[in-house]
């Protein structure tokens, strides 16, 4: 008979480890990356390689020098790199991509303490930094499905480090392509009032559009993850529902001015952000009601930023604000503990859920001091009162 080990809960452990979850997210991202390479060719491939490579190198450096949680083999930096590359324009200069990858891991994750301690989604931190640093390059898109895309780089990709990239508009002009085709559907709607077909947006297969990977494919990959419970279906549903309802209300209010809700849902990075970025486990709420609130907030903010700000796209800032609000959302959506809150009575007293990185004191090697009984315990009336 084996020895009986006395230890606190949990006694039954699941099969899910961080590595397994992350690896599955990488599997789900691979088809999307392949489609992206199919759309934009060798430039997209180089962008994905450089950005992910920088993320991994930075992660390695932080894990080696700092007292970080996580390690290189848990694939979290790979996910950050792949997602970051997917949010950047395909012809984004590679050196800027490297800057974005470094900032994403260093500022977004490493400085907070590594895996699970980050407040904001690392990929979006990297993107927000380069958006502020290089506003022209990050708004320069090129059309997908150009001929010769597998053999010829988009010239702006190959800019020397620290140097201005070559103009993509000139390159398109040489190729006899309408420069307007290089704008994203959201930018075209915002600045030129041209509305893309929702069907074209859904498959991303129509040529000469500057769009990301197909929303249908992203949804399918997300469905795989949700089905295997590697992401919570509530968050993407709440984001898309929130954005859809707000966009539909505005559309119903004034169809001439506001675009239809399908255009809002399938253009830009909303689907990618909702499925893969907002669902980052470290930066989204753990309470079910909190997830709905968090998703709704992101959806609402996305539409508000797209309609009423100078920027054509608002998913990134919406998710970052949602990340920042996560601790508050968790606080106000605490579930009532079992046995409390009957008949709608006060729901106070719920304990804060344990952090995933929590290690019990005993596991950390701490020894609980034994209670000692004082032999000569002073009686209260004999105690000297201190003079003030």
């Amino acid at each position, binding site marked *: 008979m084996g020895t009986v080990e006395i230890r606190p809960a949990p006694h039954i452990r699941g099969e899910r480890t961080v590595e397994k979850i992350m690896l599955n997210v990488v599997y789900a991202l691979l088809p999307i990356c392949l489609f992206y390479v199919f759309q934009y060719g060798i430039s997209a491939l180089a962008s994905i390689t450089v950005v992910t490579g920088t993320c991994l190198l930075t992660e390695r450096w932080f894990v080696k020098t700092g007292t970080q949680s996580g390690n290189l083999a848990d694939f979290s930096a790979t996910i950050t790199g792949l997602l970051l590359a997917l949010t950047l324009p395909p012809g984004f200069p590679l050196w800027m991509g490297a800057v974005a990858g470094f900032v994403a891991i260093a500022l977004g994750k490493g400085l907070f303490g590594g895996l699970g301690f980050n407040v904001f989604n690392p990929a979006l931190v990297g993107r927000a930094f380069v958006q*502020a*640093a290089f*506003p022209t390059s990050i708004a320069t898109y090129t059309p997908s499905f150009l001929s010769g895309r597998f053999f010829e780089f988009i010239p702006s990709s190959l*800019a020397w480090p*620290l*140097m*201005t990239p070559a103009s993509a508009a000139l390159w398109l002009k040489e190729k006899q392509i309408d420069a307007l085709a290089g704008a994203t559907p959201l930018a075209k709607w915002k600045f030129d009032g041209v509305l893309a077909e929702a069907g074209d947006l859904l498959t991303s297969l129509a040529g000469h559009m500057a769009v990301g990977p197909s929303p249908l494919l992203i949804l399918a990959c997300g469905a795989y993850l949700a089905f295997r419970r590697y992401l919570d279906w509530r968050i993407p549903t709440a984001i898309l529902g929130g954005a859809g309802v707000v966009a539909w209300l505005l559309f119903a209010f004034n169809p001439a001015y506001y675009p239809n809700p399908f255009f809002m849902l399938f253009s830009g990075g909303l689907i990618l952000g909702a499925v893969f970025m907002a669902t980052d486990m470290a930066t989204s709420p753990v309470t079910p009601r909190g997830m709905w609130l968090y998703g709704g907030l992101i959806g609402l903010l996305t539409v508000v930023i797209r309609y009423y700000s100078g920027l054509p796209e608002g998913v990134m800032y919406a998710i970052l604000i949602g990340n920042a609000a996560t601790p508050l959302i968790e606080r106000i959506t605490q579930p009532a503990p079992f046995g409390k809150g009957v008949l709608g009575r006060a729901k106070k007293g719920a304990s804060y859920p344990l952090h995933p990185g929590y290690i019990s004191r005993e596991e950390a090697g701490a020894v609980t001091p034994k209670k000692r009984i004082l032999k000569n315990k002073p009686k209260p009336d004999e105690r000297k009162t201190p003079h003030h």
Partner: protein
Amino acid sequence: MTPSTTAKWDEFMEGIWKQNPIFVMVLGMCPALAVTVSAVNAISMGIATTFVLTCSCLLVSLMRKMVPKEVRIATYIVIIATFVTAVDYFIQAISLALYDALGAFIQLIVVNCIILGRAEAHASRNPPLVAVSNALGMGAGFTIGLFALGSVREILGNGTLFGFSLFGEHFQPWVIMVLPPGGFFVLGAWLLLFAWFERRKQAIKEAGQHA
């Protein structure tokens, strides 16, 4: 060096390294973040602050036995404000461009907590020469700190240092570096570097003790 010169030298070095106003005490952040978009601005701001700091510390130190305790802060502020006004007019006289670039931050030297802090914590308790060497050290440390911020921000944000182009005309400026967030990022990076040095020194020291 005589013992008293060494002591004054120590007072001077205090502000440059051990108690650097920017990297160790993290004081005077308002000008440190606001005007360090270029190396020239940073150094001018540092020199202006050093002048005000040294002169006010000298005067405070000379008057330290005359000023009643109850009104000392008001006295210090009046002294500091006098020198700030002088610096304000002086900069306006020599370079209007610099005056415009520094803007309200010249007048705001009066509320720079390094100056009041030095006057209260050091100059009011020490003889004039010691107070002046400490103030000069603090001012130099502040200038070095501002230059460290300003040079990085100018190099990345503009591709230049002191107005000289470093990378040629095709340099891609990092717009964020001349915006307010850039100041925070660069300051954070410098603080990180200094904290890392400090920790390394500590680790080496401890290893030496164990051996």
